[in-house]
C-alpha cells in the first residue's frame, strides 16, 4: 500500500522565544516492511535541518532557531510504500523457555530490550502477570497472541487519561490509557518473561479506535493516526510486530517511524525553548492512501 503522510507540528508561544531547539523523529525508516519513496521536512522560520541516525537506527532531524520568533512550525511530508509480509511466527513451534535458550546466543545485542527502561519497570504486579500470562512452558507464538488479545480486552482505551510520562505501574493502577500505555505494558510483560521486546512509534491508517469518537480536545484533533505498538524478537531472528491497542498484528496499514526501548527513545518531538514562558503545541497528522491520490508535486 502507498501512503501519503503529512505531519504538522506547531508551537506558539506566550511571548516570542529567543532561542528554540528541537529534535524530530518523524521520518519513517526503510526496512523490509516499508520503503520511503519521498520525504521532505520544512521548518518555519527557515533554518537548516540536520539529520542523523541515532543509536537505534532511527532518522532524527534537528533544528536550532537562535533568534527571536513567535511561532515554530515543522511540516514533515512523506510517501511510504508498505508491503505485506509472510507470517514470521507460523511454523515456529517452541516454548517460551526454548525461545529464551535460542536468544541466549545474542544476549549482548538483545540486552537493551530485556531490561527495564525509563517507562517500563518490573514491579510486583508486572512480575506476577508475566508469570501468569507467559509461563516458560507455554507455546511462544500462542502465548504472545493470547497476551495481545488479553491486554486489548482487559484495559480501556481512553484518550487523555494518561500522558507521555505515564509508567506501566500507573497504567495498571487506573486500567485505562492510550496506545503508548498498552504498548509499554506488553513490553514489560514480555521482557519480564525473558522475551526481548521493543517499542515502535509510527502511523496507522485507521478510524479512531472505539471510545475515541467523542474526543473533543481541539489540540489533538487529527493526531489519531500517530500510533505506537511493539515488536518482539522471535527465535528465528525476526522482530514480530504486535498492536495490543487494536488487537492485531502489525499490518500493511502500519507505517513505522522509529524503534527504541520505550517512548523515551522515540518521542516524535523534543524541544527546548528559551525566553518564552509557555508554549502551546498543536499537532496535525494526515495519513491517506496515495494509491488513489496523485502527489501534488
Amino acid at each position, binding site marked *: 500500500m502507498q501512503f501519503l503522510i503529512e505531519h504538522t507540528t506547531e508551537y506558539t508561544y506566550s511571548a516570542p522565544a529567543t532561542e528554540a531547539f528541537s*529534535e524530530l523523529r518523524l521520518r519513517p525508516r526503510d526496512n523490509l516492511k516499508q520503503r520511503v519513496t519521498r520525504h521532505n521536512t520544512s521548518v518555519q522560520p527557515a533554518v537548516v535541518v540536520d539529520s542523523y541516525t541515532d543509536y537505534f537506527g532511527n532518522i532524527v532531524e*534537528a533544528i*536550532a532557531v*537562535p533568534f527571536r520568533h513567535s511561532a515554530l512550525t515543522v511540516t514533515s511530508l512523506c510517501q511510504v510504500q508498505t508491503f505485506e509480509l509472510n507470517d514470521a511466527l507460523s511454523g515456529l513451534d517452541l516454548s517460551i523457555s526454548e525461545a529464551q535458550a535460542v536468544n541466549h546466543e545474542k544476549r*549482548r545485542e538483545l*540486552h537493551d530490550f530485556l531490561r527495564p527502561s525509563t517507562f517500563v519497570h518490573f514491579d510486583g504486579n508486572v512480575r506476577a502477570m508475566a508469570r501468569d500470562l507467559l509461563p516458560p512452558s507455554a507455546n511462544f507464538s500462542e502465548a504472545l497472541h493470547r497476551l495481545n488479545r488479553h491486554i486489548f480486552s482487559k484495559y480501556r482505551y481512553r484518550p487523555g487519561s494518561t500522558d507521555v510520562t505515564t509508567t506501566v505501574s500507573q497504567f495498571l493502577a487506573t486500567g485505562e490509557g492510550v496506545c503508548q500505555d498498552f504498548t509499554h505494558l506488553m513490553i514489560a510483560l514480555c521482557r519480564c518473561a525473558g522475551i526481548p521486546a521493543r517499542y515502535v512509534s509510527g502511523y496507522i491508517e485507521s478510524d479512531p479506535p472505539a471510545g475515541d469518537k467523542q474526543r473533543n480536545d481541539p489540540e489533538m484533533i487529527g493526531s489519531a493516526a500517530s500510533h505506537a505498538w511493539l515488536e518482539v524478537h522471535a527465535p528465528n531472528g525476526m522482530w514480530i510486530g504486535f498492536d495490543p491497542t487494536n488487537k492485531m498484528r502489525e499490518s500493511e496499514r502500519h507505517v513505522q517511524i522509529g524503534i527504541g526501548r520505550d517512548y523515551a527513545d522515540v518521542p516524535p518531538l523534543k524541544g527546548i525553548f528559551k525566553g518564552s514562558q509557555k508554549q502551546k503545541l498543536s499537532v496535525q497528522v494526515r495519513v491517506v492512501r496515495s494509491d488513489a491520490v496523485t502527489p501534488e508535486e
Partner: protein
Amino acid sequence: MIGTASGSLDETLGTPTPVGNVYRRLLSHFRTGDIPDIRRSIDLSQRLTEDLSAAPTSLRSSPDRRRIPFDLFPRVIGPAEWIGLEAGIRQRASIWNHFLRDIHDSQEVLKAGIIPFELVYDSPDYLRPAVGIKVPDDVFCHFCAFDLARDAQGRWTVIEDHVSTPKGAVYALHARNVINGAAAGLMEFADIQAHRNFATDMLEHFRGFSRGGSTEPRVVMLSSGPDSPDYFEHGHLARLMGVPLVRGDDLTVLNTSIHLKTIGGLEPIDVVFRRIEDSQLDPLTLDPESPYGIPALLSCVRKRTTSVVNAIGAGVASNRVIASMLNRLSKFYLNEPLLLPTVERYALRDPDGREAALSRLESCFVAPVHARPDESRWLADELSDGEMETLRRTIMAAPSSFVAEPLLPRDPLPCFNAGGLEERHSGLRVFALSGRKTRVLPCALTRFAADAKTRSISLGRGGGLKDTWILHGPKESDSPARTIIIQSPERRLRLGSRIADRLLWLGRYAERAENATRLLRVIDQINAETEGRQTHSLDAFLRATLEKTTGHRIARPRGRRGIDLRPALTTLLLDAKNPASVAGCIRACRDNILAIRESTPPELWRVIDRIHQIVETANVGAAPGRVAIVDIQGLTQELLAQFDALSGAAGRHMLRDDGWHFWSLGCHLERALVTVLVSREAVQPRSQNRNGAERQVEEIADCLLRLLACQYAYRSLFQSRPNLCNVTTLILQDGHLPRGLRYCMDEILSSLRSVLAGRAEDTASAPLRMASKLAADIEFTDLDEFFPTGPNEPDRRLGRLADSICERLSQLSSTISDHYLHHQAFNILR
C-alpha cells in the same frame, strides 16, 4: 622545636636517596633556622591559602568559610620513582582512550567478552546518543588525573581514575605559589621540576583537537557557574588559560555550530573545555532537566564543527568496576601488562566479591560503582556500630551499585603541627594531558588528613594542602618552554554578553547606591539645620527629589508642614526589601558581581562585600520587617568613603577593556539620569509667597548643588551666590564636572566608541548615533533662553527639556541592551 618522627620518615631520612637528602636539608633548616622567620612563613602560607578557602561557594551557602590548612613541608618524589609513575600513567591514559574509543565505536571489547557488557549497557553513564560519533584523533580523554597510594608492599597503586572532568589542578598550582610567596628559600634545597606553563600547555593541547579550519582555534570553558562547588577552580583555571568561562546560556547553536554570545555578535567556538558532567551537556539529547548544558551540542560534535574536551561519553569510564579490570583491557588493547595496578576492589554485584567484602567490611573503603562529584563514600574503619549497620543495609539494598576496597596501609607524610613534625595520612593526584602522545605534568597535588587519626584527605572535609616536589634526574632539566601562539586580534573573542550585562548593572547599581546615599545624607543635614521647618518650596523640592529618584512614596501627615523626614530616610537607607534603597542597591551590586567573580578583579569584590557588611551590620537588631534606628550622618559618611574606595578599586584594577566600558556605561548612564532628575525637580515652578520668592529659589539652587556635590565647582566658576540659571548651566553643560550631564555623556560616547570597534553592521552603531545626537543637543542648547525673566525664574519649557532628556537616556539604555547584551542572531537564511 621540632618533635619526633617515627617509622617510615626515619627510614626516608636515613637513606642517601635524593629524596632523603632533600628531607634532611629541609628538616635541618627548620631545626636550626631563624624561628620568627619560620613562623612568619607559616603564617604567610596560611594567609595565602585563605584566598582559596574564601573562594568556594561557601560565599553563597554558609557564612563560615572553611579553612584549608597549608603545610610548608613538601612531599618530595625522587626522579626514579617519578619516571616509573610517568610510564604507568601514560599507559593508563592510553588504555582508557582505547576503551572509550572502542565503546563508542564497534565495542570489540564487549563482543570478545573481555568485560561483561552489562557493566557498560546498564551504566547510567553510557550515553547511547554519543555512540557512533567520531572524535578527533580518537581521543576521548584529553585531560585526566589519577589518585595514587602505596600498597602494603610500598608499590604505587591507582585508587581512583578521573577521566571525565578531573579536578584539583588549581590547588596543585596554588600550593607552589604559596611556597613561592611564603618560603621561596626552601626551594633552594632541591632541584625541582617547574610547573611552568601548565595552563597554557593545557590550552594548546586542547586547541590541537579543534576541527575547524582555523589555525587559531577558540576555546571556552563551560561551567555550571556559581552553582558548582568547583566554581572557584573553574574561574581560576579559566583565568590562567586566558579563556572565557561560560555557562550553557552564553552559547547557542547557529548553523550546527557552537557560538558564543558576545557584545560583538555571535562568535564561532572551536573547542568547549567542559567542566560539567556528561549527561548535563546537552539538554535536548541527554538529560532534559539539565540547566547547564547547550541544547544541540551533540549535533555540533557529530557535524564536527565543535570539539568537546573531554569528549562526550568519557563518563562511562568513571566506573570503579571497569577500572578494576584495567589489567584485562591493557592485555586486550596494548598486549602489555598493566604497569600501575588498580587497588584491590570487590565488585559487590558478584556474589563472591560481596561475600568477601562483607566478611571484612570494617576494614574496607566503600564507594558507589559510578563515580559522582557529590557521592557518599564510607571509610568503614571510622564508622560507629550504628553507622556500620546502616552501611550494610545500604549495600544490601542495591549491592550492584557499590564496590568495596580493603583499606591500604596509611601513607604517612611528615607534616608540621604545632611546631613539631607529625605523620599524616596523605594522597597524591597526578595530572596528564593525553592525546596521540600523553604528557604527565610535573604538577601533582598532595593532600593530607586533618589529624593523625583520620584518613579523609578531602579539602572540603578538613584535609590540608602541601606542595609536591618532583626532583630532576641527574642530567635532566626542564624542557624548554613551548612556543605560545599569540592570537591575532581579530581571532580574539569579544566580551561575553552576559558578563557585559552584569558589569553594566554592577555599575548602575553602584552609582545608584552612591547617589541615594548622598541624597539621603544631604536631606538629613538640611532637615537638621532647619529643625524640620524648611520653607514650603524647599520641603516640596526635597520630597519630590526623594520620590522621583527612588520611586518611594513619602507619607505626609495632613495639615502639617516640615515634619521629621528621618523615618523615611532610614527606610531608604536600610530596607533591603525596597529595591530603590541603598541596602537594596548594594544587594543588587553584590548579586551581580558574585555572578561574574571570575571576570572581575578581587579588589572590586572585596569593597562591595565590605559595603554590604556595613549595611548589614547597621541594620542588626532591627525587628523583622523594620529597619534599625541609626546615626544617618555617621553611616552615610562611612558609606560614601567606601563608594570612593569602590571607584578607586575599579579605576586601579580593572583592565580598560570592553568590560570596563560596560561598567563605565552603567555608572555614567545612572549618574546622568539622577543628575537630570534632580535638576528637573529644582526648576519645577512651585507656588511661592511673593515675599522672599527669590530667596527661596536661591535656597533650592544651593540645595541642588549640595545634592550633586557641586558646591565648590560652582563657587570656583561663578564666585557668587547660586542662581538657578548658572547652576543648571553648570550641571547640564559643563564638560569638566564629573557629576554633570555633559561629562557623563562624553564618557558614554567614548565607551560606546571603544565598544563598537570593528563591528561592521550598520545597526551596531545605533546606540552610538543616538548618544551623539543627545550629547550634541545638550551641548548646543542655550539655557539662558529658558530664563526669560530672570536667572531665578525658569519657565516651564526647561522642565519639559529635562523630561525629554530623561526619556532619551532611558531609550539609550534599552538600545544599548538590545544591541550588545540581549543578543540575537540575524536570520541568516533570508
